[in-house]
């Protein structure tokens, strides 16, 4: 993840490899998002060609789903759960703390490109609310102090 470098050849290769899967567009977009961490705009015509779809259709699907990014994320992605169970355990105050500390809002990346802050609506870890993820790791019963420690441990 978080490979901001990409090239047309690798995107075309993904599209060619998966184009015959049933419901191929979602499979291709999912793969690009997982491998690159975002979906670069120039992939749209490449995918559209491979699947014989219009660019508008491809673009429409990308824009519908929250996971698909049209900008590269920071080196780390921090996701805070904002849903009800986590709210009941202080997620609103936790979000305020993190936003103040990083100086960014949800959906933004710190100026040094270190951290992207995303909102997420339930991680299925509601029995350990409030819950967050940092890159691929999940954390439960997260306090402001715990998140500070986590942020300090990142490069």
């Amino acid at each position, binding site marked *: 993840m978080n490979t901001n470098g990409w090239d047309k050849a690798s995107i075309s290769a993904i599209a060619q490899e998966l184009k015959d899967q*049933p*419901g*191929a*567009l*979602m*499979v291709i*977009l*999912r793969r690009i*998002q997982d491998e690159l961490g975002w979906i670069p705009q120039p992939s749209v015509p490449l995918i559209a060609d491979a699947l014989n779809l219009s660019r508008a259709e491809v673009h*429409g*699907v990308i824009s*519908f*789903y*929250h*996971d*698909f990014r049209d900008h590269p994320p920071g080196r780390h992605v921090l996701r805070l759960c904002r*849903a*009800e*169970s*986590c*709210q*009941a*355990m202080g997620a609103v105050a936790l979000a305020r703390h993190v936003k103040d500390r990083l100086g960014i809002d949800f959906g933004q990346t710190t100026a040094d490109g270190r951290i992207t802050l995303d909102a*997420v*609506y*339930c*991680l*299925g*870890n*509601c*029995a*350990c*609310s409030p*819950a967050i993820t940092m890159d*691929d*790791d*999940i*954390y*439960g*019963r997260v306090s402001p102090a715990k998140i500070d420690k986590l942020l300090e441990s990142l490069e």
Partner: protein
Amino acid sequence: MKTSMKPVVFVPRDSGALSLGAEDVARAIAGEGAGRGVDLTLVRNGSRGLYWLEPMVEVVADGRRIAYGPVDAESVPGLFEAGFLDGRPHDLCLGPTDEIALLKKQERLTFARVGVIDPVSLDDYLAHGGYEGLARAARLGAEQVVTEVMDSGLRGRGGAGFPCAIKLRTVMQTAADQKYVVCNADEGDSGTFADRMIMEGDPFVLIEGMTIAALCAGATRGYIYLRSEYPHCARTLKAAIAAARARGYLGKNVLDTGRQFDLEVRVGAGSYICGEETAMLESLEGRRGMVRYKPPVPAVCGLFGKPTVINNVLTLATLPIILARGGAFYKNYGVGRSRGTQPIQLAGNVKRPGLFEKAFGVTLREMVYEYGGGTASGRPVRAVQVGGPLGAYFPQSMLDVALDYEELAARDGLLGHGGIVVFDDTVNMAEMARYAMEFCALESCGKCTPCRIGSTRGVEVIDRIVGGQNQAANLLLLRELCDTMTNASLCALGGLTPLPVLSALKYFPQDFGLGDEAAGEVR
């Protein structure tokens, strides 16, 4: 158990346990064992669902599982010192696992193996009664399978509570060159994690359930539409599917029945509405998750226009025990028209959060206090939301409602996927109502105006009421808006968002800056 046998230690791989440091604990146990020259077997099981005790470590002593928890990496040397590998006493010792009161009080049918077995070991699954349901289903034949499921009274656990057998029968009776089974593993509701626990803790039971449904309905391909927030489920499912395929439980000739069935995991992309079954089908077909008009129902015209069985994880994961033990066995649990058991998920501000599988009929109060132990903060319980973001908020005075489909519906609520979220007295219910509208606006597929526009208007109107602007007129507007959303939305996102909003307003008018009389008018 012979003392000469290798000690066995269980450390959950469930993502809830991992979120509390289970990986560090597993590493510490392996390291400490190696350092002491003890050759031990580390099994990474699912969670028993007692999350206040996670990470909960178990050992086998005298043939019995003994639990310790909550364990952190620092306490591992002390556990070895105390002789935990032989089940010896320690401050963290909880005694025999099956004697833990809140586990013992449950009726674990769907979750019988979760936390018990190694989730990716097919042999372990088989040793614990796995694939008995499919074997019996294959002997009975499709018609009889439908009868058993009908007799069990099993209703869809995804939210709508539709009888499972009717969908199976419809797909079975609809002729087509291709049919599908789709598992709805989108589990988007806040406060719910039962699907996740099954997929991480006993994935074979879901695979077996889907296979039973497929053979019954005549489907040869299956998809598990999994939300992207569950990467651990994806890994466990893929490992289990590969293991099942390697041993002939999936593939061209399932269990030598001469029948074909195979399945794959498809990961979603962070869209709540894709949990709605027709939006899910659109997404599987590679499009935006726009809700379809019904009819036709998916059982007749579903994925790629073909007859499709589409059910929630829990519904499908309950088919194996129904087929293994018979419909009557399952139906014996429960009350009224809610038969069997419901995996209840207790979350939010609660001392003992977790998963508790109980026969239908237990009350909300029992769950919140006897199981949950009241709030985690120690403050009074003020509101309890049942059934996810589209479910009603209940005040203290209504906690005696029984958790079954009809009882909740009679109180303008719903069971949904069985999630309960507890709030203490610091909650501001106007903010929760506002959040419900905001969430609807964020996740609306945009097909119908009441949902797409109404939800955004709803946020503004609530803000005006709370801000004290022209309250009477704005209350009227909010009521009309909710009426329109209820009556003119195509699906339940727009149609049910008024439930949390209106229940918050009805039971907690003071939070909106209103007197009781004003709120009374809203109903």
